[in-house]
């Protein structure tokens, strides 16, 4: 080994030679090799399936925008409340929702909730049907980057004047108006006439970060109404998932304006860290002021979580998915123990061959490297076979009637993860057997030949 390049060339040559040896060895012991590859493939298939599900479920729902979206929380609960969570409530009471909405220091903000309402097209004898709605304020669409097919969002002026306008989802526009440009047409919502302001394209960020009450992987609502006009409607269809303190958990069922019930979600856009700091200070100040007024009994306790922190805090990933992921990795571990056992056996069988190589001058390191490369080849083969298995696994998940089924698709990045996981884990499994094989004493083996 004279120069550096020679050294590298030798290494590369040796690597090629070891690959060739590995290939020959595996072909020679086809059954054992097939068993190892199959075991690794099954382990990789199971774990990559669950990894892909987990990866898709914990993704960023609004890449590019998530950094500037924040979820403010204040604590309006009584000082003494047995069994209460230490964290402030997720949602706001009606009064806090209105006050924070009017606070106006965030560049954009949206207050919202959801329920379902009876709707019919504005034509005689058209049938009534229930449609889900999100009641919110004008900034919702720009803040969350909702794409419009026709028309546009309503204005802040519309919010202020309680205008009866509506933004339809693509599917609802299809159902009611046959899918054309329906801007300006009217429909009857809870007996009041609303004018279509816009129609949005399919939009379904997952997890549905802006309202995780009742699961973060649900469908989006079918239409969007101005929040304050929505509150005016003659309706009693619930006002979203409501949490009330005190003895009567139903205090707000028919009256969303009661003091002791939280139910409105609230989001703000804050473009710079300075704005976020100012907004946090404003929340503290607001809480202190409400405390002085006697409305808040607790000392100011506010939260201003960014979108991704919020999803983290809410642990939106279904518990069954987390458990299944743990179990899938348990399976992978078992597959690896299995592979270690088979490799020990396999290298042991090659003792004679290894003894000859050692006697002919191969160092322990050479033998170790050769065995490890054989393990890597097994892992690579297992990974390649595991990919279609993972694909099959994801297909099976998609067939399940679970809310996150649609999220179970094969991400190209998972391809690399699967192969890397397969090779790394099989190398790991190969270390000990290879080390054992490299301890084979040359003389003993040569003698027995």
């Amino acid at each position, binding site marked *: 080994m004279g120069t550096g390049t020679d050294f590298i060339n030798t290494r590369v040559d040796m690597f090629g030679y070891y690959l060739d040896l590995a290939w020959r060895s595996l072909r020679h012991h086809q059954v054992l090799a097939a068993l190892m590859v199959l075991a690794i493939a099954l382990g990789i298939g199971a774990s990559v399936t669950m990894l892909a599900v987990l990866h898709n479920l914990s993704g960023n729902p609004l890449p590019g925008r998530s950094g500037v979206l924040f979820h403010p929380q204040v604590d309006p609960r009584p000082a003494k409340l047995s069994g209460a969570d230490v964290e402030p409530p997720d949602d706001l009471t009606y009064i806090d929702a209105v006050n924070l909405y009017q606070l106006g220091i965030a560049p954009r903000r949206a207050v919202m909730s959801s329920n379902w309402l009876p709707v019919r097209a504005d034509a005689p004898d058209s049938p009534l049907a229930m449609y889900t709605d999100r009641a919110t304020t004008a900034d919702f669409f720009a803040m969350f980057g909702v794409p419009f097919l026709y028309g546009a969002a309503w204005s802040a002026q519309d919010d202020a004047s309680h205008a009866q306008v509506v933004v339809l989802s693509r599917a609802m526009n299809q159902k009611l108006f046959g899918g054309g440009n329906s801007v300006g047409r009217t429909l009857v919502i809870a*007996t009041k006439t609303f004018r279509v302001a816009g129609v949005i394209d399919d939009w379904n960020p997952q997890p549905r970060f802006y309202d995780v009450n009742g699961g973060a992987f649900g469908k989006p609502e079918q239409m969007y109404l101005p929040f304050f006009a929505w509150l005016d409607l003659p309706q009693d269809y619930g006002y979203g998932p409501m949490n009330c303190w005190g003895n*009567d958990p139903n205090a707000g069922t028919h009256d969303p304006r009661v003091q002791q019930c939280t139910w409105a979600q609230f989001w703000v856009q804050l473009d710079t860290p300075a704005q976020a700091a100012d907004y946090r200070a404003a929340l503290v100040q607001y809480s202190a002021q409400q405390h002085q007024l006697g409305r808040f009994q607790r000392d100011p306790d506010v939260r201003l979580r960014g979108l991704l922190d919020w999803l983290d805090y809410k642990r939106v990933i279904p518990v069954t998915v987390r458990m299944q992921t743990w179990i899938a990795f348990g399976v992978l571990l078992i597959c690896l123990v299995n592979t270690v056992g088979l490799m020990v056996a396999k290298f042991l069988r090659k003792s004679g061959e290894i003894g000859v190589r050692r006697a002919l001058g191969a160092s322990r390191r050479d033998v170790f490297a050769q065995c490890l490369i054989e393990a890597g080849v097994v892992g690579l083969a297992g990974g390649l076979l595991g990919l279609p298995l993972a694909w099959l696994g994801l297909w099976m998940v998609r067939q399940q009637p679970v809310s996150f089924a649609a999220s179970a698709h094969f991400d190209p990045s998972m391809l690399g993860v699967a192969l890397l996981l397969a090779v790394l884990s099989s190398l790991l499994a190969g270390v000990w057997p290879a080390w054992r094989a490299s301890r084979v004493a040359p003389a003993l083996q040569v003698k027995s030949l």
Partner: protein
Amino acid sequence: MRIHLQVRPILAALHSHKAAVVLLVLEIALTMAVLGNLVFIVYGNIQRAHVPTGVAESGIGLIQSIGVIGQDNPGTAAGNIAVLRAVPGVADAAYGGPPLWFVQSNPVFVDPSRKQALAKVYEFQGSQGLVSTLGLRVIQGRAPARDELPVAENATKDTEVPVLATQALASRLFADGHALGKVIYDGGSNPMRIVGIVDHLRGGITGRADDDYALVAEFLLGNQNVGGGFMIRAGDPAHLPEVLAAAAAALQKANPGHVQSKLYTMAELRENYFRSDLAAGRMLVAIMLILLVVTALGVSGLASFWVQQRRRQIGMRRALGATRGDILHYFQVENFLIVSAGVLLGALFAYALNLFLMHRFELAHLPAHYLLVGALALWVLGQLAVLGPALRAAAVPPVVATRSV
């Protein structure tokens, strides 16, 4: 006898393959740990999906008929109940919802000051006929008589409401067993007097004890226009789907101002309720199968390796008079010993894993008999996996002994 004699030489032989044996034992133990817990979770899911709610499930159908505020509608509550009862095949009908369908769960108190809630209770409220439509079994006391029902329009916040309580709730609230006639309170202001006890009524089925804590209250409805859930009970459960459809049509005809959102039979509600649990169960069963296959691969892989390695020794034993059966048994016993060691270690692992799952996912404590199921499965699996290699070993002719390898 023979098997007993074989154990010592087997142990001696295994001793010289320590590494592979230890790994195999470890693999079986890990498989056992995961398998035991998975069987427990899946079986728990399946069992829960078959817990009865306590109502006449096979005959009950639900019509969700939603009133639109501000919309004219000629139908009345009492009229609607009469319309439903008049539909051929309907045995009973009432306004109110069945179990597993948005049943409210509220704290309940035995003192009027409402200081300390004793339990969270499913509250079933509905019209006259609710108890008989649900088909509840009153085992003590009686169902509220029609003339003592509070009239919905006249009820004030002090009106006493006669209620039925489940047996489980009655003994939770009144440990002395004298619940009949006692007054209890929920978050609202009305006192509720327990006039009867029903055997079971589960609002939801989560596996917790308070599933079976329920109260049923009937109110006398008259001319008001109410929307929500209307229930029917078909006289012949076999005809429920047709009867339900006919009832829904009749109800819609009487209430042109209502929106009918959905019809459900109780069986469909149950299916929806357990859908995601059963889906998770199917995933776990798939994982279990993978696990069993991998372990079988490991066992039979190592066994065939050993058979091949010991061909010469097997030949010698055969030459010295061992029968094919002896050789077969040798490998079977060897496998049994290894699997048994794995199972013993696996029982420990299973409990450790169960502690972790209990801590992290609120899983219940793993009962010992699930470990027996896991052990049995692994013993059978081991014997099946070793059968091929062992038969190959038994087929080794004695003449091999005379050849050099």
